[in-house]
């Protein structure tokens, strides 16, 4: 099956938040009032029952203020830090179409995925003690529908399709924007996590931080160390300890209470 993706063309986002509403509606999430941060942003951050957030970034360069609106959600990384960190078999699964989905029956609520994710996306629910995030509407894509946010977007800022198609489309759009005067326009598909299934066109791709996106996201090195060499070290020490002491017994035997040789 082809990997599916979502393209977000930030130059077309008008901050209407229709996608936020569609996400809440389709996924049947209760809206809980949060903190008001003094901007148009609905919430300061993603929440366990709020998976799709339009960030309103105010970014100043040379006395010029840009008001950057951008849809934030799980990036459905190709090399997903959440999956790498998760200890519970089957709690985080990659669907045939490339989507990274959580399977809550298997989730134990340890929160390792929160630490493994370079985009700070998964959120623990205080009531169910399980972790939640955008599913790329896996229950819709499974039957050939596009995700709810895409369906509702009034400006064509959001498109759904195969990853290969959308990457090409994104490149074309970046060229178009460059011709329009946004010389730094480009595609955000960070290679540090093997590329993402949520792809952005940014008007200034040289500075993704101004949109609230990490510049060079990778799985944190301590997480890679933890799940690689540290595991190996542990296996060596545990097996070495058990086998080593066993063979020590075979070779040297127990210490008997005979007279000490120095006597």
């Amino acid at each position, binding site marked *: 099956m082809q990997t599916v993706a979502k393209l977000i063309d930030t130059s077309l986002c008008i901050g209407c938040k229709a996608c936020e509403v569609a996400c809440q509606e389709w996924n049947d999430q209760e809206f809980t009032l949060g903190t008001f941060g003094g901007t148009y942003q609905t919430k300061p951050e993603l929440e366990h029952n709020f998976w799709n957030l339009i960030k309103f970034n105010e970014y100043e360069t040379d006395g010029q203020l840009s008001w950057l609106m951008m849809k934030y959600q799980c990036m459905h990384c190709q090399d997903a830090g959440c999956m790498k*960190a998760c*200890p*519970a*078999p089957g709690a985080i699964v990659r669907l045939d179409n490339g989507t990274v989905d959580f399977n809550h029956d*298997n989730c*134990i*609520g*340890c*929160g*390792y995925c*929160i*630490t493994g994710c370079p985009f*700070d996306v998964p*959120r*623990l629910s205080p009531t169910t*003690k399980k972790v939640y995030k955008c599913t790329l509407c896996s229950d819709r894509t499974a039957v050939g529908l596009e995700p709810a946010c895409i369906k509702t977007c009034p400006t064509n800022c959001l498109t759904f399709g195969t990853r290969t198609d959308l990457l090409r489309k994104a490149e074309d759009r970046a060229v178009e924007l460059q011709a329009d005067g946004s010389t730094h326009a480009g595609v955000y598909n960070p290679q540090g996590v093997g590329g993402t299934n949520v792809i952005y066109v940014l008007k200034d791709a040289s500075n993704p931080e101004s949109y609230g996106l990490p510049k060079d996201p990778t799985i*944190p090195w*301590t*997480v890679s*160390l*933890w799940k690689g060499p*540290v*595991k190996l*070290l*542990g296996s060596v*020490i*545990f097996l070495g*300890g*058990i086998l080593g*002491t066993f063979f*020590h*017994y075979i070779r*040297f*035997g*127990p*210490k*008997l*209470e*005979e007279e*000490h*040789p*120095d006597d």
Partner: protein
Amino acid sequence: MIDRFNIKERFIHWMVAICFIYAALSGLAMWSRHLFWIATVLGGGETVRALHPWGGIIFALALGFMFRNWASQMKLDSDDKVWLKMSHRYAMNDEAGVPPSGKYNAGQKMLFWMQSAFTLLLFLSGMILWFPEIMPRTLRLGAVLVHPLAAIGSIGGIILHIYMSAFAVPGSLRAMTRGFVTPGWAKAHHRKWFQQTTKIEDERAR
């Protein structure tokens, strides 16, 4: 028979041991997907996730009591330092030239200090891992290394400890179950301690 551990020491030791074994098994269940079956045995992943930190905290508390009782007896003396240099001879049961030990030999003392340090690390990093949603990210990124590394070190130490007490030095286990050892055992393995205790008893008898 010579008394070695009183009931208080034995109680604390087994509190530490039981909680450690629970914390270690439940922790290992979450350490590797290949060991997740341990979680199933212990009541399921959610149960293990919820109870492991409590097991760990009771363990750390019990170890705190153990530390208070024993720390003063665990200082290395000059014989112990020579003992450590000769420890390969001790390990090969060829003890010519290995200095005699007091109540604890240098290996036991080192184990005590190492386990105490690892427990402190396990406790601090465990508290961070416990609340991923409120702990700062940098602390969590450190804790995911410190916690398993300290666990590996302490489980490794305990494998050695169990081997020594239950297999390699016969007669040791009874010191921690019933509290006493034979004079022969004391003389062979902890001579300085044997001499002290028998001297005290001689004086009493006189």
